[in-house]
């Protein structure tokens, strides 16, 4: 009995540490600084589709999306339609996968990234607010600021092979939003590596 109570407490504690967002509900607002020092506020992008990508290039799942160029293509596609793509790097400063502004700018250039901005979230604030669990965990927010999709980027959790062959949920959500239809799959289980949050 006592044990169960403690476990319940532990459960409650854990679930508050990493928040959860619900598809179909307004996405929580946030303000974050990118690697060039520019501030981005989610609500400022109201009227545009916003994609959040939990990012860490050292994660082999993420790496596969970039080294095949599939991720950059998708970013370009979003940009061409007037959408916003925010790369969220929540790796804490003590981890070897952390990138300081200089290293991040280099990586941005070498990977030929086509995102709107790379947000420095080494505090984990944005990541935890959205309950980002893995890299690459993606979130799609519609023009009204409502969370349209959260979960895996596609249905193929792989560290090799061509991601273009997979069913891409971001692309699918985007098409549905543009057509004004209902998003069929609004929530999937994300795959990938742990985020490496600051404690």
């Amino acid at each position, binding site marked *: 009995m006592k044990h169960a109570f403690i476990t319940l407490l532990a459960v409650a504690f854990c679930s508050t*540490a990493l928040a959860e967002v619900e598809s179909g509900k307004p996405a929580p607002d946030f303000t974050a600084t990118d690697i060039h020092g520019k501030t981005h506020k989610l609500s400022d992008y109201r009227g545009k589709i916003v994609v959040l990508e939990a990012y860490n290039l050292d994660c082999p799942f993420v790496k596969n999306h970039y080294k095949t160029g599939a991720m950059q293509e998708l970013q370009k596609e979003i940009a061409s339609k007037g959408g916003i793509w925010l790369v969220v790097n929540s790796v804490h400063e003590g981890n070897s996968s952390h990138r300081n502004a200089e290293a991040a700018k280099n990586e941005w250039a070498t990977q030929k990234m086509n995102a709107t901005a790379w947000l420095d979230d080494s505090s984990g604030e944005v990541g935890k607010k959205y309950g980002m*669990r893995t890299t690459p965990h993606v979130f799609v927010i519609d023009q009204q600021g409502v969370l349209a999709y959260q979960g895996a980027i596609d249905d193929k959790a792989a560290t090799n092979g061509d991601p273009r062959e997979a069913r891409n949920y971001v692309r699918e959500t985007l098409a549905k939003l543009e057509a004004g239809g209902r998003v069929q799959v609004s929530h999937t289980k994300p795959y990938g590596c742990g985020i490496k949050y600051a404690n």
Partner: protein
Amino acid sequence: MMRYRSLRLVVLASMVAVLSLRAMQAEPSHTQARLVLDSDTVRPGESFLAGIQLIMDAEWHTYWRNPGASGMATAIDWELPEGVTAGPIQWPVPSKLPEDELTTYIYEKEVVLLVPLQVATNVAAGSLVLKAQVSWLECKVQCIPGGASLEATLRVGPESKPSAAASQLRHWQTKLPQTQSTLDVQATWAAPQTDKLRNLVIEWMAKDLTQGFDFYPHESDGFEVQPNTVVTQSGNGVVRLTKGVKLLSGEWPGTISGLLIGGTATNRTGIKVTLQPGSKDKTSNIPDAAVPLPPLLQMLLYAFIGGIILNIMPCVLPVIALKILGFVGQARDEPAKVRRMGLVYALGVVVSFLMLAGLVIGVKAAGHQAGWGMQFGNPQFLVILVVVVTLVALNLFGLFEITPGARVMDTAGALASRQGYVGAFFNGVLATVLATPCTAPFLGVALGFAFAQGAASIVLMFTVVALGLAFPYVLLSWQPAWLRFLPRPGAWMERFKVLMGFPLLATAIWLYSLTLIHYGPRAWWLALFLVVLGLAAWVYGEFVQRHRVRPVLAAACAVGLLAVGFAYTIEGQLRWRSPITANAANSSVSNKPGGIDWHPWSPEAVELGRANGRVVLVDFTADWCLTCQANKKFALEVPEVQSRLKELNALALLGDYTRLPAAITRELNRFGRAGVPLVLVFSPARDQPPQVLPEALTPGVVLGALNRAAGRER
């Protein structure tokens, strides 16, 4: 110059070599992979076992078939010669790694993934090369994809011959999840947390294991079994745990598969199960028709007899004694008045019962479950009743009189006149109120019948019970001559009256003990208030009623004492309107050493016990149910029953109805009962309906039912 250039070239070349070497070593693999077979030679048509052995560096791990929140299951891509086919991977039971908030299911140090392979009958003798492309994700803090191309040679020949690795593979076979065809496991959806999050309750019999219980889910689509596990019950082999299940998309799953886990890290076992949550038809496979409702007339007769028997139940007995006293006093009065008094008493009983009926109908109409004696689960009702019963006891002690302004009676002959119509009516009310925690033989069946019916039926049945309860007095009031055997009125009556105050005081203390579960240590203030109440009653009786010394001031004092006492103790300290809301859902069961090993009741527990071939004894009881306490003491917790339960390996389940949980009310109604006690004995044989034991039990009745359930009719 040439020399310099060539030298620079050499340096450059060696630098390139070093660089490329470093590039190759930039991600050194932390996992060594090997393909081993359990056979050197197999005959055509035979099957054999292959093992992918992964040996990981310290602190590095690879993943189970369901990696969990992150990671990736190891994959095997076979390149097999014609005629050889591979089955699915058999995964040893993994470890659960709670890492940050991402729980994963992993293998550390070493794992051998087993794969059964089959050689077709038409494969010619000779040597075959089996190739497996294995890919995995290895993680410490960072994750690195790993892979290996493995090969092994197998001979096909006339004589099968095991390999040197056979024993190693057999060892790893023992680490695979078991499949138990006889295992009975139940899964039910508990109350939903939100429309996307539900609690899944899993119960099973975990034979020898005592700890480390968990459920490791297989990989799933559209939903996710949360990693946190709450074990709400374990012991005596029954394990119950709760897992959150999150719906991601689509419908709630009809089946959830995974492993039931038990044991420690060094000796962990898993049982492969496919759960079908919410299969309620399985948990309540007793047809409702098993308890056919008897005809109305018979039920009315039961209600009447039950009402009469209620008179001698311990709750009502003190009131009865008073009533008898009244008759003795009235015996010489004019017959007409005595008859009227009897009728007024009956009226008091009937009116109280009708109010109870109204309450029951109201509660039922409001969509709640109603039960006999349910008001005893209400803390405020208990407080009021403690006060009332204490006052009656003080009255019997002669501290004060009920009739306002009455003088002290020094002759017993005047007693009857004191017991006016108001007194008679009040006696009827008190008898009813005190009767409710008791139930008598016949009464349970009758009331159960009434509760299952409409409003008219409830009113009818309650009235008949009331008439039964009042019947002996009405009869005596019409035939006072029958009381001739009692001594003539005299001073003994006053002593008898005081004597009867003690059982009532005991009743008050018993009622007081019931408030403890609702108020905890705060109930102490109620006891203090009773003292203040006694003081006020004395002031009133002594100075207002008896000696009339400045009666107005005395009355003001009494009222003042009560008001201040009530405001301070009951309102201020006891806070009687806000009882402690304990976690009623997880009421624990405390067992006395050497006594019956009780476990909390749930329909699932009953089914689990039966499925495991055990006789199941269920006792629905409540702290306020005196009949239940008597049954427990005299018919259940007795050596014969205790030892027979042990001998039969029977499961004893206790349903605590003290706080009136709806689940137990439903179960009571299912067996046609309106309240506790209800004692059931289930046979493991599914075609046998449960035995419903009578309200008042004897050890013989219980033993007989246990024997019948165990198929040992003697």
